[in-house]
């Protein structure tokens, strides 16, 4: 169980969806008021 003062242990596991995410992307930028 994690308590507030405990450091978060790092994990080397990467989510499967990140490993297969498309790399050929375009970027869009907006300001929505």
């Amino acid at each position, binding site marked *: 169980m994690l308590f507030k003062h405990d450091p978060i242990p790092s994990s080397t596991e990467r989510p*499967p969806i*990140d490993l297969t995410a498309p790399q050929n992307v375009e970027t*869009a930028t907006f300001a929505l*008021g």
Partner: protein
Amino acid sequence: VRTRVGYAGGSRPNPTYHSMGDHSESIQLDYDPSMISYSDLLAEFWRAHNPTRQAWSRQYMSAVFYADNAQRETAMEMLHHETERRSKDIYTAIQRVGVFTLAEDYHQKYSLRHVREVLNEFLAMYPRLVDFVNSTAVTRANGFAGGDGSMALLESEIDAYGLSAEAQQKLVEMARRYHR
């Protein structure tokens, strides 16, 4: 694929939330053009806020920050159609993106910050802010935590987020609040 929030459109170097200068609060997204077009994103952008009110400060202005000439032309063309469709003036600035400065960590993936168990597991996987922000799993979980997407879609892909069964349950519970 990914989203991030930050400051864009101004000239002040190194803007922060408390010292934004002439920048605007902005969202930047990486998208797969084979899945969604820039025009579709623009249509969603204009649907998602009211651009017919003039903003009282640059911090809250409506703007499309284009990355290249193709985006600029698409934005200008769609702005014209949007103005005609609404028969109202639209106060959306169309300008070059320039430098986009990532906002502070507590602004990133804001909806997910209300689901501590999920947030903590993702932070353990990605201790560096830039990796956390650029994770597709984190981006999608944040969307569902804020009520976007359907329960069926969440259930179909949640196993790919790398979360424990407990954290998955918390995320489903949060998303379900929006789908009653």
